[in-house]
Structure formats: C-alpha cells, structure tokens
C-alpha cells in the first residue's frame, strides 16, 4: 500500500528576535496516522503547530500541509484542516445544533450536507435529546467530544488537536480516543498534543520536542526500547530533563 504524506516539514524554523522558538525541525506524517506531538512547556510545540496550521509564517524552511505550501497557500490549508484546542472549541452560548450549523457553514458545507452531517453527528454522540441545549450546560467531556466532531465535520485531511483531553474524566477520555481511532480509520490524519503519557502510547508515532528541536521521533515501542525505558513517561522525563532553556 502506497503511503501518502500529508504533512511534510523540512528544516522548519521560527525565530522571534534572537530567540529561536522552533529550530530546524524536519518530519513527515502519513495519511491516517495518529501523530503525537509532545514536549515540555516552552519547548516550541505551540509555535510549530501554529506554523503547520498556516497561522504563523515560518522564518525559514519548507512545510507542506495536505499538499499546500505554508507560505503561499494558507487559505487552502485552512479549508483542509480541522483544529480543536482545550481552551477554545465551541460557543458556550449557542446550542449544540447551532454550533454544528455555524462551523459547518464556515467550512462551506451545503445545506443538505449540513443537515445530514448534523443529524448523524447528534445521533452518534447520543445527543438527540439535548440538541437544543446550550453547549455551556454540557459537562466538559461532552463538550470536548462534540468539539472534536465539529472539527472534523468538513472531513479535513488533517485535524490538529491541542491538549483536547485535559481535565476530562477517565471514561470520557477513553471515549474521546475511540473517536480519534474512528477518524483515523476513515483516513483523517491526527496531529495531537497531550500531557497524559498514557495517551502517547495510543499514537502510531510520537515526536518529542526539546528546546525547539525534535529530540526523538518514533513509535512508542521503539522509543521505549531505544531509551531502555518501561513507560513513555520515563522516555519523556529522560528527554525533557535535557532541556537547557527555561
């Protein structure tokens, strides 16, 4: 089976004045892959992710997202990716149905598609009784599941998830991952950051950023083997301790 590359970064760099936030990172992510993007606070994850989403222009280097260039084709990139973060996801003062319609509309879904998607989504999440409830009234876990579904409503090739499960209860957290697996199986590439090390294990491949560079990139089992560690937690701890900047 031919693997298709959907994210390709070569020597990607971002400097803020004298400070090199992201320092020559190169990696590829394949279609349908679940790619864990780990690193300590301040290692440069957020900056790198912003460049990949077309929100921030790299200082140098090359990056292709879903076949589009991050320098010149940011608008196209934006219509081919989905994005969800722990902090902002949905409008709390709109109902579930209104949120779905709004975000679907933004991504240019036709009325018919929107209706179909919206119905199947509400059914899948078992929210039919609550479709007219305000999102703000939902428990956090539900909000995050709904936000994820909305982020992939336009069937993007890649979805960027920035700490999507922070503070979510253990059962809902796992249900969230079930949804990630389903999305990956349908061909959506998952690019995810997390502070839960057990979640790193769920990824096909994991990269570890330290001081703006990618210090390690491999499958969780290979990483554990390579660093002689029992858990991903130990791998992370070992690598992150080597950070020099604070």
């Amino acid at each position, binding site marked *: 089976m031919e693997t298709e590359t959907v994210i390709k970064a070569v020597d990607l760099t971002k400097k803020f004045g004298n400070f090199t936030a992201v320092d020559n990172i190169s990696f590829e992510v394949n279609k349908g892959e679940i790619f864990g993007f780990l690193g*300590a*606070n301040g290692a440069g994850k957020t900056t790198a992710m912003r460049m990949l989403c077309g929100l921030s222009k790299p200082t140098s280097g090359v990056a292709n997202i879903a076949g589009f260039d991050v320098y010149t084709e940011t608008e196209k990139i934006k219509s081919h990716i989905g994005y969800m973060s722990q902090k902002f996801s949905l409008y709390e003062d709109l109902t579930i149905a209104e949120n779905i319609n709004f975000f679907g509309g933004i991504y240019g879904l036709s009325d018919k598609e929107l209706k179909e998607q919206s119905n199947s989504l509400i059914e899948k999440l078992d929210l039919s009784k609550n479709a007219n409830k305000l999102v703000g009234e939902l*428990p956090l876990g539900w909000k995050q599941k709904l936000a994820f579904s909305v982020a992939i409503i336009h069937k993007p090739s890649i979805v960027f998830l920035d700490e999507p499960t922070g503070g979510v*209860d*253990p059962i809902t957290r796992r249900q969230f991952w079930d949804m990630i697996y389903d999305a990956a199986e349908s061909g959506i590439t998952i690019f995810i950051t997390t*502070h839960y090390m057990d979640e790193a294990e*769920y990824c096909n491949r994991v990269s570890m950023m330290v001081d703006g560079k990618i210090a390690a990139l491999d499958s969780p089992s290979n990483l554990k083997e390579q660093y002689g560690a029992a858990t991903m937690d130990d791998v992370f701890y070992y690598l992150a301790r080597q950070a020099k900047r604070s």
Partner: protein
Amino acid sequence: MQDLIVNNVSKSFNKGKVKALVDVSFSVEKGELFGIIGPDGAGKTTLFRILTTLLLADEGMATVNGSDVIIDYKAIRNNVGYMPGKFSLYQDLTVEENLVFFASIFNTTVEENYKLIEDIYVQLEPFKNRRAGKLSGGMKQKLALCCALIHRPAVLFLDEPTTGVDAVSRKEFWEMLKRLKKEGITILVSTPYMDEANLCERIALIQKGEILSIDTPNNITEQYPDKLLAVKSDNMSLLLKDLRKNENVKSAFSFGEYHHISFVDGFKNDPMQSDLFGANNHTNISMKPIAATVEDCFIHLMSKHEVNGN
C-alpha cells in the same frame, strides 16, 4: 489531631440547578498530604473555596486548623496558604516584587521564613528581576508555591497545581511537596491526573460533586473487586472493539500500550486459553495479570455510581 474536618457539605449554583458538591464529608490529619482526585467539573475548586472561606456552603460545616470556616474566617485567613488553580500572581510585577508583596500582605517578610522556601526559591533566583508573566509554566508554579508558603501556613491548599504543566515540572513539584510535608504542614492538593494519586498519603476520589471513595491509594486499589488483565496486540483499536463484543468481558479500557479488561462473575475459563478475541485474527497477542491502578478504580467506581444513580 485533625487539621481539617468537612461534615456533610453541599453547595449548588444557579439556584440549585448545578450541584457542585453533594454531602461531602472527610477529614485530614495534621501534617498529612491529602489528595482530591477528580476530573474538571467534579467540584474540587468549589470545595477548596469553601475551605479557604471564599465561598459559603449551602449546608454542612467545616473547620480548618480548629476554626470554623464561617464564624472564624479571619483566623483561617491568617493560617492557611492557598494556590488557586489559575496562575494568580501579578504578571506585571517581577518575581521578587511578587514575593515581597505577598509576604507583606501576610504580615511577614521574605527573610523571616526564607528557610521554608529556600529550596524552591534558589531555582527562581536567577530570574528574580523577570516579570512573572514572562516565566515558563514550571517556574510560574514554583513562584506561586513560594508566595503561598511565605507566611509558613499551617494548612496549604493547592488547587490543581500541576494542571497544564509538563511531566518534568510535575515530578519536581511533587518532590517539593514531599519536602514540605516534613516541615509538618498539612497539605490538601487536588489534581485531575490519576497517576498523581499514588504520591498522596490518602486520597478522595470525587466525581460530579460526590466522593466516590476515601482511603490510602493502596487500600483503594486493593479494593478493586475484579481480576484485571492487561492485553495487547498489533491492532489495538480493533482489539478493543472485539473485546467489548465478548459477553464474558465486563469492562475493557485502554491504558497506554495495554487494554485493561475484567470479566463478568462466574467466568471460570482461563482467559489465557479462551477465545476472547472474536473472529479477527490478532497477531502478537500478549496478556498478563496486573494490579489495578487508581485510574482503574476511578473508572470502576464511576461506572458503578452512574448505574446506581440512574
């Protein structure tokens, strides 16, 4: 002696629509490191605010360091240290200015209790003229801890000190708490990270405002009722689906590189031998019996609670 007593405390918001705490009771011994473990929205912050005299409970009573949280709130405010969940220092003041400021509002000086914070503050010293807003997450949290400790409180309340902080800083933080415990300070700490439960002496698992269980982490994991197996194969997501289809499997949840499964009562077959995995051919299956973790227990208690609740 008990430094903290909580009796049947309930609190709701929005005229009773949102129940934040339901009949919560527990107590903490002097010098104990007590953990409140639960996800966001479980009621942890409300509980902390009631105990730090910032909110009034609807029902029930609580005492901190021998003082009632309502009547003697002034006494409590003299004796406790509090680090709210959100980074709550002045971002436009420098590290040193923050520390001096908080020392003075607690009627003390940095010098007076410097010994207590010395271990932590030496790491901050190189940045003492940096504005707090420009510190990294780990450093901010250390500064916040210093500010909460500067008056040598009898009881320390730490509301989700490790949320959003990376694994390295989290480990360092728990090391600091262990050292503080030796100073005889009672510490109440909350966290959504189940793996941090083992670092506490005793824990309360809390979900939807109700306490699911209170005990030492060991006792809680020992009370897990079922035998647990850790299973893995090459296709973990398919494996999980197949396991869940099997009627002998009571629960199946992913835990890092393994799935943890338990079986329905009366399942006598050796799971190693039996056909657990349905028609799909899984490759590289490996299975081992394991002890339950706090997270297994939390999931178990949470499911049980929900079944009873409905």
